[in-house]
């Protein structure tokens, strides 16, 4: 490697390092929602893992975390299309979810009942089959979104993989707070 290339390489990498410092300083402005009361570190790592909304993929990249033996709570932000699964002050997982529930802040219990399939009827009277549902309060549920944009009232729609994971792993009676 000649002297010129070496100089350029050093210069380029120092510019990249300076840029990375500035990008990460942006984290001071970009903070988790105040209602969550979680650590910035866990929120940042899980936000980095988050994918764009897709019905066939998990919300986060990488393996699903273990949920058993943890005191879990959930927080839904309908405007952001996100549900946070929390363990005390740490984010355990972020779900991309379409929250089709009544607006306003309220609290519900998740996972009291669950099943492998559920049917709804759309405005044309056609039935829509969703898989792996979990009850949310008395008359709503979390379920897989059969097709992108297939809106069903009184549901929280997640991807098929996420619905299967929640159906198999989420403990009973987890508190969900909707903001």
């Amino acid at each position: 490697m000649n002297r010129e290339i070496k100089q350029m390489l050093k210069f380029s990498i120092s510019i990249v390092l300076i840029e990375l410092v500035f990008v990460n300083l942006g984290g001071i402005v970009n903070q988790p929602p105040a209602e969550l009361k979680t650590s910035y570190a866990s929120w940042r790592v899980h936000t980095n893992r988050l994918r764009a909304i897709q019905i066939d993929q998990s919300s986060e990249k990488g393996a699903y975390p273990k949920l058993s033996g943890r005191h879990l709570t959930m927080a839904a932000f309908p405007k952001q299309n996100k549900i946070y699964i929390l363990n005390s002050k740490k984010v355990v997982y972020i779900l991309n979810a379409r929250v089709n529930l009544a607006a306003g802040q309220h609290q519900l219990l998740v996972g009291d009942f669950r099943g492998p399939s559920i049917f709804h009827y759309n405005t044309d009277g056609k039935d829509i089959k969703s898989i792996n549902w979990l009850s949310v309060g008395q008359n709503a549920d979390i379920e897989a979104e059969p097709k992108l944009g297939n809106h069903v009232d009184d549901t929280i729609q997640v991807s098929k993989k996420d619905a299967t994971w929640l159906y198999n792993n989420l403990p009973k009676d987890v508190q969900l707070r909707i903001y």
Partner: protein
Amino acid sequence: MKELKQLVKRHNWLKHFSVCNLLMFLFLVLYNFTTYLVPLIHLSLPAILVTMILADVLCITGQVIAE
């Protein structure tokens, strides 16, 4: 402008782009992998490309000023 023209003629661009950009790209990919474990901000692929282009432009400008 004259210096820039001279530098463009003289400089080995193939070597520059193959060595500097490849190493920078690998470095940024490594950085992105660490963001899954450490709370740093993850960069998207377009952000990586823009960062590299910016580094290149600043690098060439610096070279011209130094000459």
